[in-house]
């Protein structure tokens, strides 16, 4: 049963991953990518890493891929131009792909491919606990350092793009909420026949 499920999911992952690079429309590529993410979450559930699977869906499918889709949809893409230069990029792409496969193979052979060897804390009650042990106890310093690096990157991006133009009207929320009825409304007795 598990084997059948594995082969179905694996087939979908492979086909959709190929479609990511084969699709002509970039938006379709991103949609295929989302299917790939989602199905690999299914594979993770199969090896018993349900916490990681849910995180993959929440973080990558629910947030990162949405922003991807956002950017790609708003790009003004010229399909003809996109196809040019494919051959000149091919060797470089193949090299990257080969390096990637080699790395995965190395990691797999070094640790052995059975599912148990991927469980970092065999004694932990569930996988949320196991990941928590590794991330927040064993490697706390590295975890916090990576958080700091992300913070620096975020501040850098904000500093690079934030500029206040002088003559642009801006919303000042404090000013808006501080406004009371007597600041905005005046009652005037208009005499009939005279107007204001």
């Amino acid at each position: 049963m598990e084997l059948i499920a594995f082969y179905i999911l694996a087939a979908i992952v492979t086909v959709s991953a190929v479609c990511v690079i084969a699709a002509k429309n970039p938006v379709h590529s991103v949609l295929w990518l989302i299917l790939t993410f989602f199905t690999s979450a299914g594979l993770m559930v199969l090896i018993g890493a349900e916490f990681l699977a849910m995180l993959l869906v929440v973080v990558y499918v629910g947030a990162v891929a949405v922003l991807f889709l956002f950017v790609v949809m708003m790009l003004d893409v010229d399909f003809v131009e996109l196809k040019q230069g494919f051959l000149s990029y091919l060797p470089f792409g193949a090299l990257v792909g080969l390096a990637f496969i080699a790395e995965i193979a190395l990691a797999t052979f070094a640790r052995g491919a059975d599912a148990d060897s991927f469980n970092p804390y065999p004694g932990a009650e569930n996988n949320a606990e196991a990941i928590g042990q590794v991330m927040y106890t064993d490697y706390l310093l590295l975890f916090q350092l990576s958080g700091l690096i992300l913070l620096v990157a975020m501040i850098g991006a904000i500093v690079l793009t934030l500029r206040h133009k002088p003559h642009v009207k801006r919303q000042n929320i404090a000013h808006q909420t501080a406004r009371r009825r007597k600041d905005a409304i005046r009652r005037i007795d208009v005499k009939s026949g005279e107007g204001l």
Partner: protein
Amino acid sequence: MSAFIQEHGLLFGWLTVIGQIMLFTIVLLLSLAFLLLMDRKVWAAVMMRKGPNVVGPFGLLQSFADFGKFLLKEIIIPAGANKTVFLLAPILSLTLAFAAWAVIPVAPGWVVSDLNVGILYLFAVSSLGVYGIIMGGWASNSKYPFLGSLRSAAQMVSYEVSIGFIIITVILLVGSMNLSDIVSNQSSGFWSWHVFSFNHVLLFPVMLVMFVMFFVSALAETNRPPFDLPEAESELVAGYQVEYSSTPYLLFMIGEYLNIVLMCAMMTILFLGGWHGPIPLGEDFVANFPLWVVNLGHLAWFMAKVVFFFFLFALVKAVVPRYRYDQLMRLGWKIFLPTSLAAVLIVSGYVVYMGVQA
């Protein structure tokens, strides 16, 4: 007989699961028909109108009439639309809305799949709901739907963050991500419900604020008024669903309302004690009745709470004026995010130093 079941155990299990799914689907769709009517009736009552009152007694069959009308109309697909994605979007939106219900426990043990990471699954599936909207808006190949879907995506992604943190406060208190565990942590009367959490009195103000924030975030997450900017009719005609007609539109609408009911169910489970009544009846008294009667009583409490929240959703729609988009973003990022983050700090500090969990 037992040998038969053992021999065909797998098949039997599959059939039970399929039966449960069918039951959930049918009950949900039927109750949705009446909840839709209730939404319109409440809205009408606030405006001192009568609301739908022609089809059936008190207009009870209005939703079924609407259903028939949607099905019988012609499906119009715009010429410039991306046909596959255009039709995939409403299907996706409906499927995800139903899929989330797989982990909702409506009474002790009455759940399709009692997942270990149930609350995370709910969060994941509800965060996927945004795809139906983005795909629909993009595939329509038209300006208003596209703008509507962009607004909607930004809004949903923003409010997911605060919803996530609020869920974390509850998980910290319970010490489990299983929805049934979360409910049974609130079993000893209304004072143990997470809204009040009187058994951790120091956390009472925090959890009350979290509950209110969850309600507001749920409004934003489901694109309900006052945060219905994705379909602001004064600016965007009807947002991402402008080009949709007939059955695809119906699927979008059912998906949207299912998500609203799902949010009501989530609030019930996370904060209002799920299937537990406000005052525990005592085990000796409960033992007088057969199990299914007790479970039906639990189911009744669960449904009453969900309907109560749905009533609040409907009331808010009628009473509150629409937000401006920059105010919406400000509320999400500058008020809800820091507050919920602070609450996570406070609750985790409390859990560690007061030794709530083992």
